[in-house]
């Protein structure tokens, strides 16, 4: 069974159709890229998947369970996390504390155990710190753990952003243009990082404009244009697909 099934997903804004009757599947442990020209509805799709926006109609199955209509935190706790196009770290907090927020759903300590610093809470805190440090190490930014998040250079903020999403041991991560604003070297590192995530068993969905990156790492590609799926398949097929070429380059007639 596919890890994620999207069936008839539809969303309009004030009469303008942003996502139009979308169907696609994402297999477990693959890297699936969503590409398309600006305004194709890629980010809206992510917003619908993660519950940030309500859909007009359609169904989304994650691990076989319907998740459409659930609040974002519930979807995150079920193992689907995401990052945003614009990195928004909690910049007055330390890098470590940022990542610890990512563990929120996995922990259970309430107000009262927090206020009283119960032994159970201390244990949980230690566990969370360990998890967060692991995520930072995986992203190679563990040395900045105790810096204020806002003081990091942009590239590292992006990595912390991903670490934060990974801290809860998700099954699936949605990355919205993770290479935007990164230099060539950083992009290469990002590519190997995403492959490493795949090797750890994660399913990755990625929106990206950097075609070279996509062709290198993606197992399958969904192409959107004006909210509609115009093609899907492995990278090699997509590259040759005339509809995709038209959508990107415009009709040459």
């Amino acid at each position: 069974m596919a890890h994620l099934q999207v069936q008839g997903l539809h969303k309009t804004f004030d009469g303008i159709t942003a996502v139009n009757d979308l169907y696609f599947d994402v297999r477990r442990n693959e890297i699936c890229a969503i590409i398309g020209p600006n305004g194709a509805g890629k980010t809206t799709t992510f917003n619908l998947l993660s519950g940030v926006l309500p859909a007009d109609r359609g169904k989304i199955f994650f691990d076989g369970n319907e998740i459409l209509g659930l609040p974002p935190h519930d979807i995150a706790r079920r193992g689907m996390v995401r990052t945003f196009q614009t990195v928004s770290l909690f910049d007055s907090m330390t890098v470590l504390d940022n990542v610890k927020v990512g563990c929120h759903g996995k922990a259970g300590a309430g107000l009262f155990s927090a206020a009283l610093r119960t032994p159970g809470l201390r244990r949980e805190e230690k566990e969370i710190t360990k998890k967060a440090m692991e995520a930072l190490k995986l992203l190679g930014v563990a040395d900045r753990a105790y810096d204020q998040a806002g003081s990091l250079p942009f590239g590292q903020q992006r990595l912390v952003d991903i670490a934060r999403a990974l801290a809860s041991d998700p099954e699936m991560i949605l990355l919205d243009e993770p290479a935007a604003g990164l230099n060539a070297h950083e992009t290469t590192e990002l590519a190997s990082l995403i492959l490493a995530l795949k090797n750890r068993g994660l399913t990755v969905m990625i929106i990206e404009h950097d075609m070279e990156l996509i062709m290198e790492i993606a197992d399958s590609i969904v192409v959107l244009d004006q909210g509609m799926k115009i093609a899907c398949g492995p990278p090699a097929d997509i590259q040759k697909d005339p509809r995709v070429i038209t959508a990107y380059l415009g009709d040459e007639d």
Partner: protein
Amino acid sequence: MTHKRRELIQYAIFAAFIIAVPLVFRGRQSYYVSMLALSGIYAIVALGLNLLMGFAGQISLGHAAFFSIGAYTTAILSTRLGWQPIAGLLPAVAVSGFAAFVIGLPTLKLKEHYLAMATLGVGLIAYSLIKADPGGITGGVTGIVNIPPLVIGGFTFDSDRSQFYLIWAVAFLIFALSFNIIDSRIGRALMAIHKSEVSASVLGVNVFSCKLQIFVLSGMYAGLGGFLYAHCSPMYYLNPDDVCHFSLSIKLLTMVVIGGMGSMWGTLLGAVGLSILPEVLRMLGSLFPGVNTTDIEMAIYGLVLAVIMIASPRQRLKKWLRLDKPRRVEPPKDVEV
């Protein structure tokens, strides 16, 4: 100096201050002890309001309502039903917390305006209900008299000094508990919510539940403050104009704003400072006969609120003192980096 060590030193200074005040102000000056005792009660309530405003990014314009609910609950139980004063603690805190829950449940899902207006409304309603006294239990405009002082383990807290120590011991405890909360899963989630609700929610933070919890907690702090006020107030007397008036809500709000929203030490200083303000104004007022100092107090609150929010002097001061640079926190020893 490590983080932990600095924290301990701060707590020690705080405790030293508490112990010192009644020893410094003696004899004829013991009036100041009871005034500062009262400021401890306000500090407890303001700390809760600070959690709400500085960390959850919400605002309450009616905290006096929760304060008075706590005060009247325990006063009614101990005067009309003959309960032991200390037995009123739990009901006072619980009823205030429940009132906050009822207000927060519909409003906290919506924009900040709604909680602000709802709390403003609850403040006005609580005031008019307590004053009108439909059930014949609050004593209306005359209030409730002869509230018994607290008795704990055979000791009666009926002197200025004993009440001061009791109140500030509780305030100290609440202060420490609040710090623990900030430095926990919920505290981090709240700060995350404050920055971006969407970012927090996709990381698994239940935004609504966190906000509701902290609002109920701040209602409970207010109830606790009300409980202490009822049993430690001058003359053991409750009256709607003292505990439930809109101006008290504004005073509490100003304490938090003046100390800098989100700063626990600031709130503490704000609470003490504004508790002294009427006294200072009264002294100045004696120089200008015919001027009503309570009006001036109100005007000061209004202007302080507006001006601080417009000009953000705290940020400016930090910039000027070059304290706005990004900090690096010392890692604890048991964590390898």
